[in-house]
C-alpha cells in the first residue's frame, strides 16, 4: 500500500503560472506526483453543481484556501507529506473577494469557471407583509449575524483506493456521507462507467455534514488507478480545516410584527449567506434558511428572500441544522423582543403563536397532524419553565422545528435488501451512512421488529454493489429512510417465505413535496416531515453561568431512545458552543484564522452543564412507525434559549453569534 499527501494552494484567488513537481518527484520514497494534466475524465465534480475542480492546473485559477494542486504518492505517509511540501508553484495573485455583501455587486467574478457571484436566490411571500407591519401594535426591526463554524468531527478524512488492474475495476473505501455520489464522481474523474468502481462505506468518525462533498476521494482514486496500486490518503487536521465545507455565516435583517396580545401579524426577512467558493449545497442551505424563517409559528403574512453569495472564503455547505439554526436564531430573537413589548413571557408568546395542524405555515405549507408536536413540546416544558422562573434564575426558552428529508420537490428514494444466508446469518443492506448516529442499529432493529430475528444473526452492510442509495445521509432523514426501506424489504421477504440466497429488496419513495416560492403551488408541501423541540436554558443571574439545559423533543417515534438522547445531548453541546464560544473566521486573504482544534472554542467536558432530555412521540403520518427525525434539531432552539437567558440576566439583547456575557473578560 502506498500513501498520498496533497499540496494545497497558498492563495485563495490566483492564476497558476507553473507547477514544478521535480523536487517532490525526487524526494525519498516518492513513487509519483499527479496534477491536473493526469485527469483522464472530468476535472469538475460536485454533489449538485459540477463546479468543484479536482485539481487546479497550470493556466487555471484557484478560488479558495482548500484548492488542490497536486497529489504526491510515496512509500510512507511521512515521506508523502514531506515531499508534498516540495512542490513549487508560481502564482499570479489576484484580489481575494471576501465580503459577501460587496461581492453581489462586484464586477469581478470570485470563483473561476462561474459567471456570477450570486449562487442562488430563494424567495416567497404570502399576504402583504409591509401593510401588516405598518398596522401592527408592535414591530421589531433587527439585524442578526451568525458566524461560520467548523464541524470538527474527530476523525480527519481518509480514503483508501484499491485497484484491480486485471479486472479493470477498483474498490474504494470512503468515509464520506454518500458513497453512491462518491462512486459517480470518481467514475466521472476516471472517465469510466459506474460499474467499474465499487465504493464501500467505512463507518466514519463523525461527519455532521462535513463529509458530503468529496475531500480527497477523487485525487486518491485517481492516483491508485493510474499507478495500479493501493493508495491511502488521510488528511491532517489542518488540511481538513482548509478543505471541507463549513456552516454558513448569514446576515439576516428581520421585521416582525404582532397585535396587542402578541399574535404575529407578519414576518419579513432579507438574508445574505457567505457561501464561499464552490456551490456544494450552499443554495440548499439558504433555501432552508428561507423556508424555516418564521420558526414553528403561525404567520398570516410573510415576505422572505435569501441569497447565497460566492466569495473566496472557505466553502460553506452542509452542517447540522443547514440554515434552520441561523434563521431561527433571528426569528426567536424577534419573538422574545415582541414578548417584552407586549409584557408577556417567552413561553406565553410562543403558546399564542405555535403552529397547529391544518394551519398554513411559513412558505405556505398546510401542516399535518405531525405538527401537533410543536405545541406538545411547549406544553411539556411548561412545568419546568414555571419552576425555573419562580426560582429567580435567568431563564431562556427556544422552540424550533427542523425538516426531515430533503423535500422541496426532490424525489427521495431509499432501498434496502434483506438476504438470508445458508449459515443462518442475515445481511441487511441499506443506503445510508453510519457516522455515529446509529443508522446501522436502526436498520437492525427494524429487521428484528419485522422478522423476529435474533439480533446476533444480523450483519449490516453499506456498499455500492447494490443500487440502494440515492444521495447523502443528511437532512435528518437517515433513520426515517433506512427504517422505511428495511421495513419494505422485510415485507418482501415475509411474503416470499424468507428463502435463503435471495436478495429481498424494498423501496420507499417520498415524492409528494413541492418547491417553495412556486407560483403554481400556493400551499406547497415543502417537507414531508418535521421534528420539533423546546429547549430551556437556566442561568445564574449573577455569573451568567448556565446551570442546566432542559430539552423536550418530539421525534415522532424513538426507534432507540438511548440513541435519541445521545443525539440531543450531543447537539445541545454543539448548540451551546454555537451560542457562546465557537467561531471559524477568515482573514482578508480568505484564509481561516482558527487553525487548531483548541482555537475553535468547542466546549470541554467540565464546561457542559447538565442536560435533561425528555422525548415526546407525536407520530408523523405517512412515515414508517411514525418516525420524524432527530439528527439536527437539537441545536436549533439552543442559541435562542441562551440569548433569552442572557437577556433575562443582564437586560441586553444580542444580535451576533457567538454571544458574550455582559461581564465577560474577553475582548470582542
Amino acid at each position: 500500500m502506498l500513501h498520498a499527501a496533497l499540496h494545497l494552494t497558498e492563495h485563495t484567488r490566483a492564476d497558476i503560472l507553473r507547477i514544478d513537481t521535480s523536487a517532490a518527484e525526487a524526494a525519498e520514497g516518492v513513487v509519483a506526483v499527479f496534477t491536473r494534466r493526469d485527469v483522464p475524465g472530468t476535472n469538475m465534480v460536485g454533489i449538485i453543481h459540477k463546479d468543484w475542480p479536482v485539481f487546479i492546473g497550470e493556466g487555471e485559477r484557484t478560488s479558495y484556501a482548500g484548492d488542490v494542486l497536486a497529489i504526491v504518492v510515496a512509500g510512507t505517509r511521512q515521506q508523502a507529506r514531506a515531499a508534498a511540501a516540495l512542490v513549487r508553484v508560481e502564482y499570479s495573485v489576484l484580489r481575494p473577494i471576501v465580503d459577501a455583501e460587496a461581492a453581489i455587486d462586484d464586477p469581478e467574478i470570485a470563483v473561476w469557471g462561474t459567471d456570477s457571484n450570486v449562487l442562488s436566490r430563494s424567495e416567497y411571500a404570502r399576504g402583504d407583509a409591509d401593510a401588516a407591519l405598518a398596522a401592527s401594535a408592535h414591530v421589531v426591526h433587527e439585524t442578526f449575524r451568525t458566524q461560520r463554524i467548523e464541524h470538527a468531527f474527530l476523525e480527519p478524512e481518509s480514503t483508501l483506493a484499491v485497484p484491480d488492474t486485471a479486472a479493470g475495476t477498483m474498490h474504494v473505501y470512503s468515509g464520506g456521507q454518500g458513497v453512491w455520489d462518491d462512486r459517480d464522481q470518481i467514475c466521472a474523474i476516471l472517465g469510466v462507467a459506474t460499474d467499474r468502481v465499487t465504493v464501500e462505506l467505512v463507518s466514519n468518525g463523525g461527519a455532521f455534514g462535513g463529509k458530503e462533498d468529496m475531500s480527497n476521494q477523487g485525487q486518491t482514486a485517481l492516483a491508485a488507478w493510474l499507478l495500479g496500486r493501493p493508495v491511502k490518503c488521510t488528511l491532517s487536521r489542518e488540511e481538513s480545516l482548509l478543505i471541507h465545507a463549513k456552516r454558513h455565516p448569514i446576515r439576516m435583517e428581520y421585521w416582525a410584527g404582532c397585535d396587542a396580545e402578541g399574535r404575529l401579524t407578519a414576518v419579513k426577512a432579507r438574508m445574505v449567506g457567505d457561501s464561499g467558493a464552490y456551490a456544494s449545497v450552499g443554495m440548499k442551505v439558504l433555501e432552508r434558511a428561507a423556508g424555516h424563517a418564521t420558526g414553528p409559528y403561525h404567520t398570516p403574512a410573510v415576505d422572505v428572500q435569501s441569497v447565497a453569495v460566492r466569495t473566496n472564503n472557505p466553502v460553506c455547505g452542509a452542517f447540522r441544522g443547514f440554515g434552520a439554526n441561523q434563521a431561527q436564531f433571528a426569528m426567536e430573537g424577534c419573538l422574545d423582543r415582541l414578548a417584552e413589548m407586549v409584557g408577556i413571557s417567552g413561553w406565553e408568546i410562543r403558546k399564542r403563536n405555535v403552529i397547529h395542524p391544518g394551519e398554513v405555515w411559513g412558505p405556505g405549507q398546510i401542516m399535518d397532524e405531525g405538527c401537533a408536536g410543536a405545541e406538545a413540546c411547549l406544553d411539556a416544558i411548561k412545568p419546568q419553565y414555571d419552576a425555573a422562573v419562580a426560582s429567580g434564575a435567568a431563564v431562556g426558552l427556544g422552540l424550533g422545528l427542523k425538516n426531515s428529508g430533503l423535500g422541496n420537490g426532490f424525489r427521495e428514494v431509499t432501498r434496502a435488501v434483506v438476504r438470508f444466508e445458508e449459515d443462518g446469518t442475515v445481511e441487511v443492506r441499506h443506503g445510508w451512512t453510519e457516522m455515529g448516529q446509529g443508522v446501522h442499529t436502526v436498520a437492525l432493529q427494524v429487521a428484528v421488529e419485522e422478522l423476529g430475528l435474533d439480533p446476533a444473526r444480523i450483519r449490516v452492510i453499506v456498499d455500492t454493489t447494490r443500487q440502494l442509495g440515492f444521495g447523502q445521509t443528511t437532512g435528518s432523514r437517515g433513520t426515517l429512510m433506512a427504517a422505511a426501506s428495511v421495513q419494505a424489504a422485510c415485507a418482501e421477504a415475509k411474503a416470499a417465505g424468507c428463502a435463503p440466497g435471495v436478495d429481498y429488496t424494498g423501496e420507499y419513495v417520498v415524492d409528494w413535496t413541492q418547491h417553495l416560492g412556486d407560483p403554481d403551488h400556493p400551499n406547497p408541501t415543502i417537507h414531508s416531515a418535521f421534528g420539533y423541540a423546546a429547549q430551556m436554558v437556566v442561568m445564574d443571574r449573577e455569573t451568567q453561568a448556565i446551570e442546566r439545559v432542559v430539552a423536550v423533543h418530539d421525534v415522532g417515534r424513538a426507534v432507540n431512545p438511548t440513541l435519541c438522547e445521545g443525539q440531543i445531548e450531543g447537539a445541545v453541546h454543539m448548540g451551546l458552543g454555537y451560542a457562546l464560544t465557537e467561531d471559524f473566521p477568515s482573514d482578508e486573504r480568505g484564509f481561516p484564522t482558527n487553525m487548531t482544534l483548541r482555537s475553535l472554542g468547542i466546549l470541554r467536558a467540565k464546561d457542559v452543564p447538565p442536560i435533561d432530555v425528555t422525548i415526546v412521540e407525536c407520530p408523523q403520518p405517512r412515515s414508517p412507525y411514525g418516525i420524524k427525525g432527530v439528527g439536527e434539531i437539537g441545536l436549533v432552539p439552543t442559541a435562542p434559549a441562551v440569548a433569552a437567558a442572557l437577556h433575562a440576566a443582564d437586560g441586553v439583547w444580542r444580535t451576533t453569534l457567538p454571544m458574550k456575557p455582559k461581564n465577560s473578560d474577553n475582548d470582542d
Partner: protein
Amino acid sequence: MTDTAQQTVSFVVNGTPVSVRAGHPHLLAALREELGITSPKDGCSPSGQCGCCTVMIDGKAQVSCQYPVTRAEGRTVTTLEGVDQTERKKYSDAFAACGGLQCGFCIPGIVMRAKSQVDKKGADLKREDMARHLGAHLCRCTGYVKVLDAIEAVAKGTPVDVSLPGGVGSRGL
C-alpha cells in the same frame, strides 16, 4: 549530524519488548505505522489537542502525539490492546450499555484516561473530577453526558445491561 533513520528506540508495549525507528515524528506514529497498534487514534497530530491518541506510559495517561519517540526508551507503554480483557470488557460493556459512544473515534483515548483515574480512585472517583480530567479530550458527538455515565458505572462497579437491541423502541446497543 546524527542519522536518525539508523537509530532505534526500545521500550515495552502491552507487555512485549519492541524496537522502533527513532525517526517517527512522535510515539503515536510509531505505534500506528510501525507496530500496527491502531486503537490510539490520530485526530489532530501533532498538536495534541483532541486526546484521541492518549495511551498510558509508565502508568500515566499521556497524549502520544506530543510524546517524542526517543523519550519512550526503556519505558512501559500500554494501549487498549494491552489492557486485561476482563477489565477492557467492563469498559466496553459500560460504554455500550450507557450509550457512551456514537462514532467511537475519541473513545480509546478517553478510556485510557478514565482507566488512569479509575485505577487511582475507584468508587471514590467523582463525576465532576472525571469531567475535569477529560479536559485533554474532545468529543463532538456525545456532549460527554453518557461518556461520564459510563465511566461512573465502571468506577462504581454498577451492573449494566448489555443486551443487543430488540425491535423498534428498545434501548440496546
